[in-house]
């Protein structure tokens, strides 16, 4: 089986079979990262370009390590060190890249829909590495992989996603993915962080953390974007933390074997208490590890599985 599209723009576009294919492929790559020589020749001669218009450490590094473990060459371009600062448009940048014939471009952009625009214009495979508040498909895939690994499956699990849903691409991709895979998804946050009509995406909405995490199998905490305080979507970090920080007290409402996830970077003490972030429920670092395997799987399926 192959992926239906040349691109991976979002989880919305992926079928259940495709998600399973990616997760199964990723699983088969985990072992490569545990070898002493962490490299296989699968994508020798292929080139991945990471085109990042937003700062990122883990996603970009994860893509690069994934590509290198499959023997692909990587080129990384960031907006601050490229012709973008000379005023080059995204289209022109992409057309120039296209002319150099890479195989895959992973793009991170603050504007929602930027990867979609590129996918229509250029022939290379595009992987959405996060576009605005829209989607972050590789994050959702690595989250699903982590859940599957720890819980044996996804269907029937109760997942609570807490925080700024309105501005979170991680939330959207996970909602698409987890509901497709049969999980029961709840979102919670103050009304100012819950986007309009989100229930039509198949989720239950709560406005209190406690209600949302009751009997949860999985709690996904989202990062509070500190710069949004000026937008009046929450009055102060203190107030937010009082009501929405996951801590040793409120986590007792969840199931005993609950998994705590976070896409990072963490604001310790704001959305998640330090002892919870580092505690026994937390799988935050496993998520990062699985990120490499998921990205290896995508690169393989898009560039190597032909």
């Amino acid at each position, binding site marked *: 089986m192959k992926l239906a599209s040349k691109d991976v723009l979002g989880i919305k576009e992926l079928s259940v079979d495709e998600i399973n294919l990616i997760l199964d492929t990723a699983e088969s790559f985990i072992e490569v990262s545990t070898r002493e020589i962490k490299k296989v020749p699968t994508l020798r001669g292929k080139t991945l370009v990471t085109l990042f218009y937003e700062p990122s450490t883990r996603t970009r590094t994860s893509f690069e390590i994934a590509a290198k473990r499959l023997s692909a060459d990587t080129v990384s371009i960031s907006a601050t060190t490229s012709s973008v600062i000379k005023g080059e448009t*995204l*289209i022109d940048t992409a057309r120039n890249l296209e002319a150099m014939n890479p195989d895959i471009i992973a793009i991170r952009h603050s504007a929602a829909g930027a990867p979609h625009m590129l996918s229509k214009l250029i022939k290379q495979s595009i992987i959405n590495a996060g576009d605005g508040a829209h989607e972050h498909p590789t994050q959702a895939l690595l989250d699903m992989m982590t859940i599957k690994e720890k819980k044996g499956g996804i269907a029937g699990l109760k997942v609570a996603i807490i925080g700024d849903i309105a501005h979170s691409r991680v939330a*959207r991709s996970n909602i698409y993915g987890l509901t497709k895979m049969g999980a029961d998804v709840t979102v919670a946050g103050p009304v100012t962080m819950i986007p309009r009509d989100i229930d*039509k995406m198949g989720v239950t909405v709560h406005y209190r953390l406690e209600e949302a995490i009751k009997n949860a199998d999985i709690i996904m905490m989202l990062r509070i974007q500190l710069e949004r305080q000026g937008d009046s979507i929450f009055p102060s970090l203190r107030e937010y933390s009082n009501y929405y920080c996951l801590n040793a007290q409120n986590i007792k409402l969840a199931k005993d074997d609950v998994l705590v996830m976070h896409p990072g970077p963490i604001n310790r003490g704001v959305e998640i208490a330090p002892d919870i972030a580092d505690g026994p429920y937390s799988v935050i670092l496993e998520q990062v590890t699985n990120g490499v395997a998921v990205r290896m799987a995508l690169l393989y399926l898009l560039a190597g599985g032909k």
Partner: protein
Amino acid sequence: MMNILLKGGRVVDPSQNIDEEIDLLIKEGKIAQIGKDIDKNTIADSAPQTLNLEGKIVVPGLIDMHTHLREPGFEYKETIQTGCQAAVAGGFTSIACMPNTNPINDNRSVTELIHRQAKRYNLANVYPIAAISRGSEGITLTEFGDLKDAGAVAFSDDGKPVMNSALMRRALEYAFSLDIPIISHCEDTTLSAGGLMNEGFVSTELGLQGIPNIAEDIMVARDIAIADYTNTPVHIAHVSTAGSVRLIRAAKERGIKVTAETAPHYFSLTDETLNKYDTCAKVYPPLRSADDVTAIKEGLSDGTIDAIASDHAPHSSIEKEVEFEYASSGMIGLETSLSLSLKLVAEGILTLNQLILKMSTNPAGILRIPKGTLKIGSDADITVIDTEREWTVDINTFRSKSKNSPFNGWKLKGMAVLTIMGGEIKYSV
């Protein structure tokens, strides 16, 4: 100047309650005679150009009361010449252009330039709309009297709402004393700030910041309140929400002097159109939900909405072939307005007579211009429509300099086949 005899067409003129197959004679640029079986041998000029229009609809020249010509300042998007070419190709003999040029049309020299250029090309009547406030900054009123004398027909800070309620009050009062309309772009910018599309399920899915309906509704309510209090008229531009329609309907029932327009995209498209991030469908106010579209159609049908205007807003590929967030707002409309509006007739929402009322007679009345009629002695501005002719929208054939239309590829039925301005044929197919 050639005299023209239009024979056998179905003449629809709401200004005279005419809807019948009759002939129409144009002499020296004016409507000279209208009636059954005008015989060219019996009239003074026995050799007029005779056009057989059987099966066609003959109406007063269409008027687009809300367009953007981009000259001066943004000639790479549109010029007065290309805008007029697009207008006549779309069946419009008169267009009123908004002041957001560069410099802004807030002084006599810009108004006069627009008139001069329009006269030079002599394709369509161009009526400049001047800014309400200097620089459209919402602080100081422009010189309404001087601008009116220079040829401005209305005032609007279109694209930049007048947020200062006191200034809006003064504008309505002062304009009333000069008998010139104020056209209000209703948007509370504190609610719309940062918004890129309609706020709703689609914006949630796409992760784009939304513009709530209330950003428009609140300002419509405010302007109605001011118009009521000051007993002056106000015209609401590009109505897009169900709430606005309700407010305007209630205001009219109470006798408040409010008129309103909408644009074809607000009854032809919903925010679903944006689900592939099509920048051509990015407009202000944004495309709304299916419920809003239904309300707009009801408002058109029951007379709440008086006019259909194109809100023709040309942008070049430089502004549109970018990330959605950075793309300029606006779509062109002069060459698709009529056909999209004719769908309302096909759907039974409007009669042909009501459509012509909204695309010609009413805009003339709101702008107080001597157009929108086929009365004897009036300027021979005439549009001939073939309601049966099918065509496919192809942006590459458009006269407009810009190509930002989300309707490209749409199959439409009905179009203007002949446009006569001042007794001269300006466009025919």
